């Protein structure tokens, strides 16, 4: 067997592509000459072959560190900003971490991690590094409670969908995402920006949405992704009017018809597509026909991604999935046939599959199982509704009932609330089984969204 050429991020960052940048709300870094710059104070050599914890406050320095570490470190564990510090010790042990890249070196002085390297701006000049190995990328799952699981990926698996799509036509894209690039959905966009020869504009959790959109415009963002919750927030903010991206992408939550139609109306000249991906299953597919769900003939083997439905749940086998959970008590990531069980429940209606919810997110209504997402999708179809959340509420009569919190679209006359409530209920009664129809509808100003950009479902 002949050794394969090891592919690393630096291979996509030659100096021949001019004008490429990586930016956040504070700094702009040129990607064109990034290979002769270092965010690690020139200490990359010391990290060769190490298991590196990437624990940096901001995405900009994290992204540059990823570029440097890929192909040099044995593995790197990406820490999203909201990671509970109480879980760090367990994660360090599970991933065999022996070095940390951080912007807070003082915090790591007494922790027993043998090597602490500081990530700092401005960048310093360095000699370009040579790729030594295929680095393992470790990502944390965005599960709801407890220590997150560590999913192991290779760069080849992470970029499988991007390479399969081939280079984009036209000018190099300027990518942006509402996600953090240390999560699967955000990392996909970061990798797209690097592999496409383009640029990227990072998000900032402390920035007001209107300021973020101003920055996206100023940097000429052409391609942008976020969760349906991110997008609903943008549509509600009134900031969408100033923005005209060429490509709008949704992933990470169910993209229902209402949010797809809302984006198409807000961005009439854009392509709007939704993608299915998860930290474990990798990128499954993209849907670009403007409709919710996906065509039934996506099942089977398609572009190297095999999908089947077992007990209602979508299972995926491809070279893009994570290869294992990492750690002392790691469970199997795939079934015996190599399929990842996504836990995403789908339902066949006509010639299309529709996502109805998460297997773990079922609420119990009088002994009957209900997916809150299915109810929200019906409520969201009302033209005056921007966003909704269904949940269960205890009932002394039936054990539980469905209640829904609803955000009305901007400028809805409050005097119409009762009329809208009746229309929503009529809509629900026409399209849902009676136990799924909300017993109570409450109009609210906001709904909580998690740091991962998903509607918070703490009681699910």
């Amino acid at each position: 067997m002949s050794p394969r050429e090891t592919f690393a991020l630096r291979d996509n960052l030659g100096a021949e592509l001019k004008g490429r940048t990586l930016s956040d709300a504070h700094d702009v870094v040129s990607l064109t000459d990034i290979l002769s710059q270092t965010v690690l104070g020139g200490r990359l050599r010391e990290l060769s072959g190490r298991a590196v914890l990437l624990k940096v406050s901001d995405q900009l320095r994290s992204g540059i560190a990823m570029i440097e570490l890929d192909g040099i470190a044995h593995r790197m564990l990406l820490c999203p900003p909201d990671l509970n510090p109480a879980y760090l010790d367990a994660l360090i042990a599970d991933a065999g971490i022996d070095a940390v890249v951080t912007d807070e070196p003082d915090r790591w002085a007494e922790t027993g991690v043998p090597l602490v390297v500081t990530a700092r701006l401005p960048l310093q000049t360095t000699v370009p590094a040579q790729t030594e190995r295929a680095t393992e990328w470790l990502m944390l799952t965005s599960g709801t409670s407890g220590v997150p699981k560590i999913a192991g990926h290779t760069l080849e698996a992470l970029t499988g969908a991007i390479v399969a799509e081939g280079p984009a036509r036209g000018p190099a894209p300027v990518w942006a995402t509402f996600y953090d690039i240390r999560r699967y959905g955000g990392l996909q966009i970061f990798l797209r920006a690097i592999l496409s020869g383009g640029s990227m504009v990072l998000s900032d959790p402390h920035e007001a949405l209107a300021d973020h959109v101003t920055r996206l415009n100023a940097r000429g963002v052409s391609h942008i992704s976020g969760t349906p919750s991110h997008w609903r927030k943008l549509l509600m903010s009134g900031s969408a009017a100033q923005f005209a991206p060429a490509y709008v992408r949704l992933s990470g939550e169910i993209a229902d018809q209402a949010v797809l139609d809302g984006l198409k109306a807000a961005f009439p000249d854009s392509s709007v597509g939704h993608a299915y991906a998860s930290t474990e299953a990798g990128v499954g597919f993209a849907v670009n026909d403007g409709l919710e769900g996906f065509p039934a003939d996506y099942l089977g083997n398609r572009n190297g991604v095999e999908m089947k439905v077992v007990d209602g749940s979508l299972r995926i086998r491809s070279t893009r999935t994570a290869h294992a959970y990492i750690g002392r008590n790691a469970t199997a990531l795939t079934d015996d046939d190599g399929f990842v069980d996504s836990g995403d429940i789908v339902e066949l209606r006509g010639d299309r599959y529709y996502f109805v919810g998460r297997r773990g997110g079922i609420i119990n209504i009088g002994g009957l199982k209900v997916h809150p997402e299915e109810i929200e999708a019906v409520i969201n179809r009302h033209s005056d509704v921007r966003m909704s959340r269904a949940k269960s509420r205890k009932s002394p009569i039936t054990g539980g009932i469905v209640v829904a919190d609803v955000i009305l679209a901007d400028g809805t006359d409050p005097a119409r609330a009762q009329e809208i409530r009746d229309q929503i209920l009529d809509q629900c009664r026409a399209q849902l089984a009676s136990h799924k129809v909300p017993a109570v509808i409450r109009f609210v100003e906001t709904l909580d969204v998690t740091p991962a950009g998903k509607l918070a479902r703490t009681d699910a």
Partner: protein
Amino acid sequence: MSVRSKVIEAIQQIAREQHVALPALSDDLSLHETGFDSLAFAILVARLEDETGVDPFTISEDAAFPATVGDFVRAYENVPA
């Protein structure tokens, strides 16, 4: 609005929504005869809790569920304000 009229109004509203043909509501009408199923009662209790701030059937562990419309209304009237 009195507690009684609040309760009666909520019953009538839910009957309209659930397409239940409600007989004339009198105090001695049994709840069974209203045509409400348990889901309709669950909705009624939840809405009245939102409106009045009380759920008389959860407050007390041993509260028996009322048998008639009159019992049901009194369960709300008898809650200390």
